[in-house]
């Protein structure tokens, strides 16, 4: 196991599992009306951006499974979209996006994640998807995007390549 792989595992254990705990124990206190940020998604995006698509999708899958295990929903519902956005975040690294496009790319990935999650949930409810879209998907995307920039600012030194 080389240094980079050890570093990846260390970050995955500390920040990945840490984000699941934060999401479970502290995020309810950050709730604004019915909207919550997704810190696990933020960490998956940062892992993908720092290490690449394979590590990004792996982080998304593992953390998604952990999240799902703590809910009454079927296991895999979070792992599925998080694997996709982890992969896309890693792909962004090879494309070399920067500036405004960097922000747009991340907002887009968070939006894709939310759309997939609520598409799954929609099968379980009688609610129209349009309602979930404006009442849940868009506000959650905005909140998570804000948290993404806050978290990436404070954890910059851990997720930046030297």
């Amino acid at each position, binding site marked *: 196991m080389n240094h980079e792989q050890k570093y990846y595992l260390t970050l995955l254990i500390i920040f990945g599992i840490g984000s699941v705990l934060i999401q479970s124990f502290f995020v*309810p206190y950050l709730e604004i009306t019915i909207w919550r940020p997704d810190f696990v998604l933020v960490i998956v995006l940062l892992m993908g951006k720092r290490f690449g698509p394979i590590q990004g999708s792996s982080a998304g899958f593992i953390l998604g499974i952990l999240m799902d295990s703590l809910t009454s929903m079927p296991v895999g519902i979070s*792992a599925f979209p998080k694997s996709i956005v982890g992969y896309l975040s890693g792909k962004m690294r090879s494309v070399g996006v920067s500036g405004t496009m960097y922000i747009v790319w991340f907002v887009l990935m968070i939006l894709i994640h939310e759309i997939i999650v609520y598409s799954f949930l929609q099968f379980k409810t009688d609610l129209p998807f349009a309602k979930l879209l404006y009442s849940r998907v868009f506000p959650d995307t905005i909140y998570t995007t804000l948290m993404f920039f806050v978290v990436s600012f404070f954890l910059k030194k851990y997720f930046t390549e030297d």
Partner: protein
Amino acid sequence: MSFILQFLSRFRDSLTLLVYLVLSFLMIISSDAKIVEGLRSTTLFSIGIVGEFTDSISAYLSLREANHKLTEENTRLAYENFQLQDALLENIRLRKLIQFKYKTQYDFIPAKVIGYSPIDIVTGILLSSEDIGEVTKNSAVMTSDGLVGKIVKLSGNSAICQILLDPNNRVSVRVQRNRELGMIAWDGGNGLFLEYIPNTVEIRPGDVLFTSGYSQIYPPNIKVGTVIQAEINTEQLFQTIQVKPSVNFNTLEEAYILKAEQN
């Protein structure tokens, strides 16, 4: 052979993603499989230990405030108790007269709320109790305010409670005023819908809903919520009725798990 290796090497990023997506999908469709259940139990057990630890720290730090609140509550309840004693004696006397047998069919097992489901919408809460071993899956969970939900997973001293705001949850209820039967479902926000009430039935804001008892899970007469708005749909058979849950799920600290008494 070298062609396959070249192919795998070239597309390994996409293939890894594909493997994860297939695994996720398989897990979604086989959520009750033993391996998935084992994974759920292990995670719940581990997170439950962390939750109990953080909870014990915050409980210790807030002891003074809790003690003050309890003293106040104790005084208020003692006063209420004096008022109710008369009513109880009268009630027992009347029950004897009409030969009713007063009996509680459930034990109430106290449990602490140690965490919430970590996905965007609150679908469940994590409960912890030393007596959780006595509880079985699908036991109802309530507080003094009303119905919270049901137990869907148990592991160690922890349990996952699926609350009324879970998209999967449906509860059969009865309107207290006119005894009409309906079904409670999540409304997409922090509220509930009362479904399957025909347009011909009069439902008023303020009507109180209780569990109907037509269920293997929820005992009858537990308060579920209050109607806040009822709208008749001329193009549909049923009304659109919005309900405010009687329990505030954001401020839950403790709950009681109902365990049927063994006779």
